[in-house]
């Protein structure tokens, strides 16, 4: 599904990803953990094609194609979805019109015609229920004035609407109360299947109680320095990052 080899990426001549490699196969769930500023969101943005980031070395292939050649919207249409750590507000843009444009753009890419309005409304309702999203939120402008938790939930709702093949969740669990966390996790679990892959960026082991990953990776200073099974997350929860930093020869800042 996704193969990253020796990825180096910088922003404003500042190297942030420093030789990152990762292989995600269809149906797998990968968790990426790491301290603040280690480059997790940068990785997500590079995968989604944000223009501020320059790839200086390495390759990314998605479904056998060179991902770096594609515009952000092409990546999305090919089935790559990013749940943003900080979802953006679009004042005055109705959620319905926004998603309809998105769904139909993706359908057009697949050679399908537009979805008719009745069908679309049905889909919206179905998917909103899927993540227990208050239907009132769908009547509002995209993310405008949403609470932090509502924004995160809305991201999962959008994911369900767009039916991606690879979903990257950037700290979707941060700022959620325990009920919301369960709902988000249930959403992911329901969407989990042998075709669809997830990359879940998180700081907390608690999400991984609900969504059990196949692999856990630790990102440190722009590199994946350790990979393992779900047990690695428990170890981190217990011991923090210092032992990893030590193993990797970094000075520990008190």
């Amino acid at each position, binding site marked *: 599904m996704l193969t990253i080899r020796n990825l180096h990426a910088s922003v404003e001549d500042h190297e942030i990803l420093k030789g990152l490699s990762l292989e995600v196969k269809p149906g797998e769930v990968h968790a990426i953990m790491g301290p603040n500023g280690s480059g997790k969101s940068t990785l997500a943005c590079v995968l989604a094609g944000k223009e501020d980031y320059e790839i200086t070395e390495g390759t990314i292939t998605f479904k056998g194609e060179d991902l770096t050649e594609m515009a952000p919207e092409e990546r999305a*249409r090919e089935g790559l979805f990013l749940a943003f750590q900080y979802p953006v507000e679009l004042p005055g843009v109705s959620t319905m019109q926004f998603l309809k444009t998105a769904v139909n753009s993706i359908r057009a890419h697949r050679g399908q015609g537009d979805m008719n309005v009745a069908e679309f409304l049905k889909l919206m309702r179905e998917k909103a229920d899927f993540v227990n999203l208050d239907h009132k939120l769908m009547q509002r402008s995209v993310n405008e004035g949403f609470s932090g938790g509502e924004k995160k939930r809305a991201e999962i709702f959008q994911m369900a609407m767009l039916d991606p093949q690879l979903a990257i969740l950037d700290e979707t669990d941060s700022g959620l109360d325990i009920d919301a966390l369960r709902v988000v996790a249930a959403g992911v679990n329901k969407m989990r299947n042998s075709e669809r892959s997830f990359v879940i960026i998180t700081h907390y082991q608690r999400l991984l109680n609900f969504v059990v990953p196949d692999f856990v990776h630790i990102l440190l200073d722009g590199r994946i320095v350790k990979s393992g099974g779900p047990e690695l997350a428990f170890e981190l929860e217990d011991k923090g990052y210092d032992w990893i930093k030590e193993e990797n020869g970094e000075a520990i800042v008190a």
Partner: protein
Amino acid sequence: MPTYTEHDFFEDVAEEGYKYGFVTDVAYEKAPKGLSEDTVRYISAQKSEPDWLLENRLKAYHQFMKMLEEGGLPSWAHLRMPEIDFQDAYYFAAPGKKAKYDSIDDVPQEILDDFARLGIPLGEQAALAGVAVDAVMDSVSIATTFKEELEKHGVIFCSFSDAVENHPDLVQKYMGSVVPYTDNLFAALNSAVFSDGSFCYIPPGVRCPMELSTYFRINEANTGQFERTLLICDEGGYVSYMEGCTAPMRDENQLHAAIVEIIAHKDAEVKYSTVQNWYPGNAEGVGGIFNFVTKRGLCEGARSKITWTQLETGSAITWKYPSCILKGDYSVGEFYSVAFTKDYQQADTGTKMIHLGKNTRSTIISKGISAGHSDNSYRGLVRVNKKATGARNFSQCDSLLIGDQCGAHTFPYIEIHNSTAKVEHEATTSKIGEDQMFYCRQRGISEQDALNLIVNGYAKEILAQLPMEFAVEAQKLLSVQLEGSVG
């Protein structure tokens, strides 16, 4: 328009560029080129006008010549004002060689066909449901639909020429009472050479049963359009009026200098909406309409209300300030505006709210959107006179920038002569966020669609003020104009 879906919307928008740029091939009767007393007399004679009107025109003509000599074009606006050779244009052009059409049967088929092509069918069967239209091409009103239907309610809606002929008392009483010919250079010019336009009178207590609208079309080359609109709403009446306009694509500039006057008597309410889509010139800034317009409403009676709503997307230069004189106590003035400029377009637009009566209120919401190399200014005056106890104003002026080559400016003027006045002014300037664009694109939405969504979202509050029949049109138009503004 319930059957119109968002899908249709984006389909329509996908059609490229300025799609109203065609020319109707029809013979013309024109005034001799240039501006002189003879030109003025020629126009008046073409319309078989009464003497008093010719007198007025001549006074205005001399005023114009004097103002042109003394001051020239107004220089205070934030505009690169062009040289205009007032002798190098035609001031009257009658399509189909007729200065007046008494029946739609006399109108050449080409003209009817092309109005239909503009989305303005004029035949009785085909006419737009619920909207009465006066269609003006160059100097002549072609046809007015639903006239009889409106007459049943006592509403007069006809071309200005018709009104001069059939309702001379009303015309003489009100014409020039809100915008005198001495007001400014272009008002003087219009008062001298105005040709057709619309006239509307709503009798006391009557709620006009349908939307009224005028569609202005400039067709002939080298010709200016100088229409005049006079709208009178008598005590307790209500009317919603809408104007639209387009012109062919041409390399030379064409002049449009209109006057709109509104009078609202006691308890009357007038909504005046404009969708301005004159040809803006090409991407290099060649050609386009110079749009110099004087629009003013008088809230004459107590509790009267005038609302100006405008979507300005066209013209090479726009210079217009639809204003309200709040004379009646408790009268209300509102101004809602979206002005979009791209390429080398320039707009200097805004409003004046003049508070004269007690407890008068005004609201100004202006949203400027600039792209390309364009320049977009808001200029607004709020004046509270001595006797206007309890006056209030709220102004909000937002600017949105697309790219970094364009300019946005805000020039608010506030003059307060009564200490009880409450005046609030807010202004913001923002750039279309990279983050917003990226968010949309990450959902599979193209850059162009993303821009459409974001800009239409920004303008939504204003577009929602337009009559329902036109709101979709307006949204579409804004999206068409946005084509090619990405990046």
